[in-house]
Each structure stands twice: as C-alpha cells, then as structure tokens.
C-alpha cells in the first residue's frame, strides 16, 4: 500500500475538524411528530363527521376513538382529547388489539403495521357506521373511508365517498373541501 494514504487520510480528518465548527449555529422552532399530527387530524375528523344517531344508546355516551397497530398515534390522541368534548360527548381513546372490539368504536385508525390484515379488517367492519382511517398507500381505494397521504412533507387526506355513504356517515362540507376525493 502506498504510504501516502496515511498522510492524506490525516489531511482528510483535519478537513472534517475544520468543517465542524461551521455547524455550530442552530435555529429552533416548533416541530411536530407525524403521530401527533395524525392524532390532531383524527380529532378534527371526529368534529366534522355526523354519525347516525341510533349508534349512541344515550345522549351522554362517550364517543370512542380507536386505534389499531399504532400506539404512538393512540398515545398522542389520548393527550389531545383530555378535557375535550364533541357535541357534548366526552371522548374516549381505545387501543384495540382484536378487531372484534371495533364494534364499540365510532372511529378506527388502522396503523401501517396492520399490514396484510388491513383487508380483513375492512371486510370485518363491512357497512358498519365506523369511520375507518388508514395510513398506507391505496387504503381509501381498497375500501377505507379516509386515507392519510404525505405531500411535500405535509399531511393530506383522501376521502372515499363510497365508504362514508355505506357507513351512513355525514361529512361536513368543510371537511370535504379540504380533502382529496375519491369514490370506491
């Protein structure tokens, strides 16, 4: 091996050391993690969706927002709903592990980790009045009601009008105006 290698490597390392102090300055501003942002969206979805009245047994029943296979979103959602109500209903967050438990939910967020189970979840829910929100590509096309998509590092959502119709959910015009619409 050429002995010069060592000399040049040392030079290279010295260059790194010169460059490092340049990176001293830092700026700070509010940043938001993806799970927290998704949770905030979910809370907003609940505000702008009207469920068929018969699914709540009583006027004081809590609204149940469920998450499946994404605890980070569930944890963030728990923080957000603390002390908040929608139409006078208190909000409960439930992390479900078994899809049969989704019967208690008004909203179900299906995490990407559900993977191959997504389709069976959608089949299991069928036409139930549950707002099903997913985060994998093509979730709305496969029958989900709302699908998070990332555009330019910002969060957007696709609404599948076919699915919300079948679930007998009424969506506010405001929600629809902000969404990317599809019908499957």
């Amino acid at each position, binding site marked *: *091996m*050429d002995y*010069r*290698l060592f000399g*040049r*490597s040392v030079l*290279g*390392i010295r*260059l*790194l050391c010169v*460059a490092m102090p*340049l*990176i001293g*300055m*830092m*700026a*700070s*501003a*509010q*940043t*938001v*993690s*993806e*799970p*927290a*942002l998704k*949770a*905030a*969206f979910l*809370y*907003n979805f609940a505000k*702008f969706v009207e469920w068929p009245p018969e699914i709540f047994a009583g006027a004081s029943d809590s609204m149940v927002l469920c998450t499946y296979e994404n605890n980070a979103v569930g944890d*963030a959602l728990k*923080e*957000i*709903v*603390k002390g*908040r109500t929608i139409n006078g209903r208190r909000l409960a967050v439930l992390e479900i592990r078994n899809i049969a438990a989704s019967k208690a939910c008004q909203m179900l967020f299906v995490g990407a980790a559900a*993977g*191959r*189970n*997504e*389709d069976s979840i959608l089949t299991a829910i069928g036409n139930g009045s549950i707002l099903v929100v997913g985060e994998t*590509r*093509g979730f709305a*096309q*496969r029958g989900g009601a709302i699908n998070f998509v*990332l555009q*330019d*590092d*910002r*969060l*957007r959502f696709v609404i599948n009008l076919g699915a919300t119709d079948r679930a007998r959910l009424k969506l506010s015009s*405001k*929600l629809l105006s*902000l969404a990317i619409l599809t019908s499957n």
Partner: protein
Amino acid sequence: MASTCLLFLRGSGSVCLALGLCIPNIVRSQPASDTDLGNKSLEQLMNIEITSVLRKEEKLSRTPAAVYVITQKDIQRSGATTIPDLLRMAPGVQVAQVDANRWAISVRGFNDIYSNKLLVLIDGRTVYTPGFSGVFWDQIDVPLDTIERIEVVRGPGGSVWGANAVNGVINIITKSAADTQGERVTVGAGSEQTADDEFLYGGKAGRHGYYRVFGHYISFGDLPTQQGVNGGDGWRLGHEGMRADWNLSPSDSVTVEAGAFESWQGQTVLMASPGGIPAHVGDFGGDFMASWNHRLANGSETTLQVYNNTYSRTDTGMREAENTVDVDFQDHLNRESRQDIVWGVGYRSTYDSLTNSAGAAMAGISNNALGYAIYFQPPQRTFNLFSVFIQDEISLAKSLSLTVGSKFEHNAFTGFEGEPSARLAWLLDNSQTLWIAASRAVRQPSRVDSDVDVNFGPMPLGNGSNIGAQLLGNPNLQSETMDDYEAGYRIILGKRLSADLTAFYSFYHNLEGNSLMSPYLSAQAEAPLFVIPLVFENRIGAEDYGAEAALNWNISGRWKLRGTYSWLKMNFHPYASAQSNAAALATLSGMLGGSMGLGSFSDLLVSISNFNQSATANGGAAPENQAGLRSYFDLTRTISFDNSIYYVGALPLQYVPSYTRLDSRLSWKARKSVEASVVGQNLLSPHHLEFGNVDQVMGTEVTRAVFGKVIWSF
C-alpha cells in the same frame, strides 16, 4: 430490518421507498405540545410540516456509504429541466454540459461524455451502453414529475452492483403509479429549451392496481461555440411510456414499466475541416421491465426482475444497435438474528451490431469527409454476464455493525472477477454516525476497448507516399481495478440542521491508455501507405482522493438551505513498463525522415492517442473544487422563490476556466390545479464553457436562458 439501502439491496427500489425523505429532512421529532395541536384548525394542521425522523430516514443516516438523495421536492424547486442538471445538486458529482445535447457526468473524477466507471439505473434497470459502458444522457428521458427521488452513491458499489459501479451509482427511482393518479398536462417553453410538453394520465388497473401512461416531448435550440458561431447542436426527443403497479396480495406486488423514444441531435464534426461540418445523431429505442416482489411480515423479501433495453443509434460515422436482456433474482433473509443476509443471482445477455458505412451515410456524412472510419471486429457480437452476490450485515454490538460481501461475476472479456467490500458503521448516539469502508471494484473492458478498429487518414507525406493511423482494440485487456478506502460522519444537530461528511482515497490500477506501436507498410494501398498502429493497453495507475460535505439547514418552515462542497485530487502515472508515446513518436519521425511534413500528423496522433481515453489523458477532467448552495423560500403560501448557485473549478488541461452559475425560479400555485413557474438559467454571465471538444465533435457554450412552465392537474 437492517439498514438496507440502495447500495446494499438491489431491486426496483421498494425497500428504499421511504428513503426519499431521508437526508434533506433529518430533524429530530419533538413529542411535546401534542395537546396544543388539538386547538388548531384543519387548515392550520395541513400547513404543518412533518419533521419527525421516520425509522427509514434514520436508516439512511446510518448507512455506511456516501449517499445523497435528490427528492421530488428538490427536483421541483431546482427549476432544472433535465436529469443531468439535477445531478449538479449532489456533492462529489461532476456535471459538465458539452453542447446542447451532450453531457459529461461522473462521480469522483474521470469525467468524459464516455465516462465509463459510473453505473446509472432507472428503477433498478441498468441504462449504460454496453458498447463503451458509459451513458448516452441524450437517450435517458424520465419526465421529472414522475421521479420519486434520485439516489446518488459516491464510491464503489461493485460488491452488490457489479462491474462498472466503480466510482459511483446513480439510481433514478420513479413514483408508484398509485402516486400519479389523475390527469396532468405540462406545457413549457423558453429561450434555449423551446419545448417541454407532457401529458400524463393515471388510472386504476383492476381492484388492486394502478397505472399511468405519459407522452413527453422536449426540444432545445442550438448553442454558440466559443468563437460565437452557431454550433448546430439542437436536440429533439419524444418519449412515450407507462408504469403499472399491482398489489396481488398483501405480500406480493408486481410492477411493469415500458417505454419507447426517438431522438434527433445536431452536432458539428471537426476532423474534416477546421470549421467543422454539420451532422446529426439519430436514435430510437425502447425498454421493458417487470418485477415481482414477495414480502413477508418478518421483513424477509424476495424479488425477481427481468428487463429488456434496445436501441439503435447513428453517431459520428457509426450505426450501433444494442439489445440487452437481464434477469435478476434477489433474496433477503431476515431471521431476526444478529445476521442479516442478502444474496442474489443475475444473468445478462447483450447483442450488438456495430457497423460504419450505412450509418455514416444516414447521418449525412461519408467516411472520407469524416477523416476516419470506425469498424468493429466482429461487427456483431453476443456476450453474457453471470453474477452472484452475497452480503451479510452482522451486529457486532448494539451500536456497531459490520457489512461484508462480494459480487462474483463472469464476463465475456476477462472471465471471473470478484468485488469484495467491508463496511463498519458505529452509531455514536442517536444523532451521530461514523463509518469506514474498504472496497474493491472493477471496470471490465467494453466492446470498444476489445474490438474497435479505427482508421485515420491517409494523409500525403509529400514524397508520393501516404501516412495513416490505426487504433486497435485489445481483446487481451485486463479489467481496470480500484481499491478504495472511505470514511464518513453524519450528524443531526438540533431540530433543523444536519451534516454529512466523507473523505476517500482510491487507488486505480491497470487504467487503459493507447500505446503507439511500430509502423508498417500497408500491402493493400495503391500508393505506399505507412500505417501507425495504436493499441489499447493497461498502462496507467492513478490515485484519487478528496472529501465531500453536504449540509441541510431548515432555517424556518418557509426557508430551507442546502449546501454542498467537493474537493478532489487526481494523480496519474504511466507504468514504467509501458511504452512512451513521445519516444515512439520521435522514433517514427526518424524512420520516416524527419523533414517529411510529419508535423500536423503528429498533432493528429496525439489527438488519436486520446481517443476513448480522454478522461485519463485530461488528468481526470474533474475540477479540484466544486460548491453549491440552494435556497428554497416560500414567499407566501402559494408563491415560492428558489435559487441555486454552483461554483465549478477550472479544467486546466481542457482550457475550461472556472465558472459560477445561478438559476432562479419563481413559482405560483394559482389554484389547487394550476401551477405556473418561470426559471432564469445561468443568470450570471451571457455564456460560459463547461467542457472541451470531445472526440472531434465541437463543444458549445451554455447560455443565459429563461424558461417558463404551466402545469394543470385534474
């Protein structure tokens, strides 16, 4: 899953899918303030940028290789309209526009329009030309809005990618058809680029599939030569293509891509007369690729990919037809143990037909006018490449992992080749990674190195006899090899700043050069004809060392800076055993009787001796210093103002001075469905030279230009 990225796992890119967000957005997540988010309206939420570190982003920052990712956002905001111009963004990459339709692009030196140590892929499909193992950039069209990201790996990638991934790998990864649904019409025009028109339609293909089809037309006007004369180098290209993606089951996906293009490039050929004569390149071709990916929940993955590239090109007196068929299989075993193994096998068959006369006539020039004639012996040839590779990533400790692997290939020119590498990554903490690597890569000879036969002249010697030269390929060439040592450091500083630093030292062996042989008297010519043969030989060694830095600084939600710097030194030394061309030339002069008008011919010989080797002959043809700074600024929610400035050092051996270029872009998203933008290119000077003449085709200068574009999405 292990830190699998481009360099370590081949395939159409599904594994790396989320890496596009990687480097430019490496900022730590901030779990606080979740409750505040509940007070924000949906509109406000939609304007918040996600700055979390996804697991896959972290993976890239921990990859023990020099990787730079050009994202779709970078592409949009650069205002660039061609892939070569996009590559200016990456550190360590040399991009020089030679004329309106040709570029010299390389990584870490050896730059030429025939750069032959770089591997370029589109969705895992190799697009280099088997004829000389370089890339015809004027044949590579990918509509820029369908690109998801471009991964640029500096340094050797031979242990996975095989021969020709010597000093870099560029992988252009296109968007899934699911991400380009709907209709999109783009109309662009400008002072130098006269058209950039695209129609794209994306729809559903069955219940679980998507497709897109597109048509793309680009056209460029002529550029001026250094003397201010029209270079006659305008360029037009039309390209139709499609991509479809199906999720056959939750664990199986299939991707199919196909395309066809036709292109016409003007040029001025110098050899025959000082002013040059107008000619053109004509080419057309197509490609097809299908891949099947089977993925298990535990992260194991199997991929099978087949592709076919075919094209025909008529260029400076030669007609070239190429057809490549390639099959690759790859298996990634993820056993949730300390070892993560990827292995694969591949087969590639290339058929070519390289003929001279008919093609030259088609390009509007005869061999006599050109002053030289190119032949290949044999004119048609089929060659096969077999390869296997295996790579193992071993977790030595919680923060230390070692990746070892090698590719083994059998090629038609040099037989068996091995390309081992070892890489060690040390995660100092969550925000810092230190890595070192040692690798060997080879560049196998290509068809031109082995089989070319170029006849120059004859020119009269003044005593009734003539002199000519003959450049001969050498079937006994060995592969060029490179032993490379790299070290890198990445750091994420706070929430908005990240830096990536790399240093490398490479030793090249057996580089090719042309050797002058003893002249002989041709038996076939009517008048006495002395022929001076030149033969390709492995006759040069080189050292190549340097450093590269990339810095991302997101100053605020609306202002982002991207900086790069590259430093490169190259030393060449012909082997002592190699014949000195200068000495041979002197001997020759003596033999022929020095007084006999050899002067202009010896100049020609020097020029011939650079044929196909100009990168080596020109000291690597890469600037010692390069720097770039890009600024993305959102003036309002709908208006953005972006600037890119690049400094490129001089190329003294080609008489190209240093230059600084500035591109500015103003864009306005008028409505959800309409975006208009205007770009000023090369704003700092009326025109500048980026490269010299190559292989007797006149180079031209890049001019100041303006370009406007409107995009409608439905």
